[in-house]
C-alpha cells in the first residue's frame, strides 16, 4: 500500500476548492503510525488529522479536553453529544484518552476527492460544534 501522504496527494487542492479558494497545508507527523495534519487557512487552530489503520482511513479533529469541560455540566455534555451524534452528517463525536474528538471514517482505498469532502465536512462540523457547545466549556 502507498504511504499515507502519497495517497493523500491532491487532497489539499480539493479541500481548497471545496471551501472556497482557501489555502490548505498537508504536513506529515512523525510517529509509529502514519498521520498527516491538515491545516485550513482561517481555521489554523482547528487542524484535522488523517491517519490510516489496516482497515480504514480516519479523519480526526480534537475539540477540547476533559480539563476544559465545566465539571458540573460534564454529564449533560456527554448526553448532548450522544443525542447529537446521529444528526451530524458524516462525523461522529468521540473521546480519545482525555480528549473529545469529532471523527470521520473512510474506506482504505478512498480517492482524494472523497477524503477532501470528509475533511471539509469535518472541519465545518467541528467549528459548528465548538460554537454550539462552548457553553459547556470553561
Amino acid at each position: 500500500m502507498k504511504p499515507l501522504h502519497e495517497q493523500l496527494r491532491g487532497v489539499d487542492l480539493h479541500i481548497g476548492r471545496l471551501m472556497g479558494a482557501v489555502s490548505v497545508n498537508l504536513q506529515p507527523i512523525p510517529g509509529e503510525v502514519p498521520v498527516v495534519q491538515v491545516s485550513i487557512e482561517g481555521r489554523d487552530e482547528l487542524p484535522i488529522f488523517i491517519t490510516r489503520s489496516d482497515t480504514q482511513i480516519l479523519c480526526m479533529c480534537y475539540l477540547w479536553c476533559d480539563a476544559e469541560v465545566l465539571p458540573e455540566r460534564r454529564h449533560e455534555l456527554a448526553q448532548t453529544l450522544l443525542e447529537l451524534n446521529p444528526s451530524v452528517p458524516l462525523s461522529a463525536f468521540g473521546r480519545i484518552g482525555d480528549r473529545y474528538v469529532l471523527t470521520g471514517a473512510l474506506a482504505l482505498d478512498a480517492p482524494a476527492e472523497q477524503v477532501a469532502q470528509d475533511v471539509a465536512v469535518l472541519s465545518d462540523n467541528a467549528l459548528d460544534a465548538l460554537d454550539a457547545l462552548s457553553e459547556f466549556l470553561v
Partner: protein
Amino acid sequence: MSVIKKVVTLLRSSVREIGESVVDANATRIYEQEILDAQHSIETARGDLALVMAKEMQSAREIERLKQEVARYEALAVEALDKSHEQLAEDVAAKVAALEDELAEQTKAHAAYAVQVVKLKDLLRAAEQRVREHEREMAIARTTESVYRATQSISENLGQGGSNLLNARQSLERIKRRHEELADRMAATAQLDAECGDAALERKLRDAGIGCSVDRQGAVMARIRARQQATGASPSIE
C-alpha cells in the same frame, strides 16, 4: 471475551497502554492464523460439499432406475407364471431379489450423503462466521490502536512545537475574530468603493450629465422635436 468488552476494559487503563495492547502481537498472530485456518476449511468444505451433493444426486437417479427395474422384472415374472414357466419365474424372482438388495444399499448411501450435506453446510456456516468475527475483532482492535497511537504522535509533536492544540474556547474566539475581520474588511472595501472608487466617479459623472448613462431618452426626444419644428408640422420621417 468479545473484543468490544476488551476495548472497554482497556479504555479504563492509560492511553499509552491502549495503544500498545488492545491486541498484543502474539494474539494478533493467533487471530490471523485462525482466520487463515478458517478460510482454508471453508475452501475444503466447499469442495467436499460439491462432491457429496453430486453423489447424492447420482444415488437418487440410481434408486429411481432400480425401482423401475424391479417393477419391470416383477411384471415379467407374472407373465412367466401366466404362461406356466415356473422355473423362469423363479429365475426372475432371484433377479428381483438382487435388485432389491442393491436398492436397499443405494437408499442407505443416499441417506448417508444427505446427512453429510447437512453436516458440511453447518461446518461451512460456522467457519464463515468465525472468519467474519475475527476480521471484525481485528478491525476494531487495529482501529483502536491506530487512533491512540496517532493521538500520541500528535500530542508529542504539537507539544514540541509550542502546542496549538490548546484551549478550545480560545481557538473558537480566534477563528471567529478572523472571520469577523474578513467580513469587516469586505464591508470596508465596499464602502470605500462607494465613496471614492470607480462607482463614486461614475456617479459624479452621471450627476454632471456626462458619460453614457446620462438621460439618453431625453436627448433623443429633444432631437426629434427639433427636427419636427424644422420640417414644419409633419410628424412623418422621411
